[in-house]
């Protein structure tokens, strides 16, 4: 189950991205085009996903460990700092430029679309550049 659960979760996540149209950069950019020809439908994707996870996360608080592992791994970082805001802002600029964030970019890889593959190559390069020049965040 250690690998079956994450495999199924990844598959479900990918199906959700594809069914909702989050994998289509033009649709994502139209969602971000608030001051132009705004298409707000993608709000429903995040809304439905957040509400579903919120309910299950609340229910999970009655358990002291997950079904198939020894403990819950809650993110340890709490700080609102420059690193968080600068990183999110850089991400948002890149997201607006092309309309792809990491999940949809990865789910589109097996389409073989050349633009997607170029983006994913740069995405991985950016991840490694940040790792080598900035390094992992540490919780205070």
């Amino acid at each position, binding site marked *: *189950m250690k*690998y079956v*659960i*994450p495999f199924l*979760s*990844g*598959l479900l*996540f*990918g*199906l*959700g*991205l*594809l*069914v*909702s149209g989050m994998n*289509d950069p*033009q649709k994502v*950019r139209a969602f*971000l085009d*608030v*001051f*132009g020809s705004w298409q707000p*439908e993608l709000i429903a*994707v*995040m809304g*439905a*996903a*957040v*509400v*579903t*996870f*919120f309910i*299950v996360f609340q229910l*999970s608080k009655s358990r002291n460990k*997950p079904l*198939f*592992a020894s403990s819950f*791994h*809650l993110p340890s970082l709490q700080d609102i700092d420059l690193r*968080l*805001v600068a990183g*999110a*802002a*850089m991400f*948002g*600029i*890149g997201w607006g*430029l092309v309309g792809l964030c990491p*999940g949809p970019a990865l789910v589109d890889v*097996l*389409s073989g*679309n050349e*633009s997607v593959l*170029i*983006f994913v190559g*740069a995405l991985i*390069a*950016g*991840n490694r*550049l940040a790792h080598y020049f900035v390094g992992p965040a540490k919780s205070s």
Partner: protein
Amino acid sequence: MWDEIGGGFLIGAAASLLWVGIGRISGMTGVLSSLFLVMDSGRHWALAFLVGLLVAWPVVQAAGYSTPINITDNTGLLIAAGLLVGFGTYIGNGCTSGHGVCGMGRLSFRSFVATLTFIAAGIVTVAMMNAVGLSL
């Protein structure tokens, strides 16, 4: 609209399954970083998650579902955007999945700040590109 709600529910269900099943947050940024941490057995779940994510494309095509990808073919723009997204999500410790879905779902103030910041930056970027006539 139902495709968006249904797809969003599937994403929420996927995040819920990973949390209740093995106690992990389904964040794509962490999954991406895990590609370079294959020696760390605590990260092996992320590789299984990535395989499942990649398999979604052929599954959906086999089911006959139409999933268009309308994307720019401007190589410079693609590389600049990919670098910004890869660098930014690493230092901001998350993206639309980890901060947007899981972080907001567990009412993390840090993730609310991150999500509002990247959505605002995306909106401003698209508006500025439209203003100078740069589009897909």
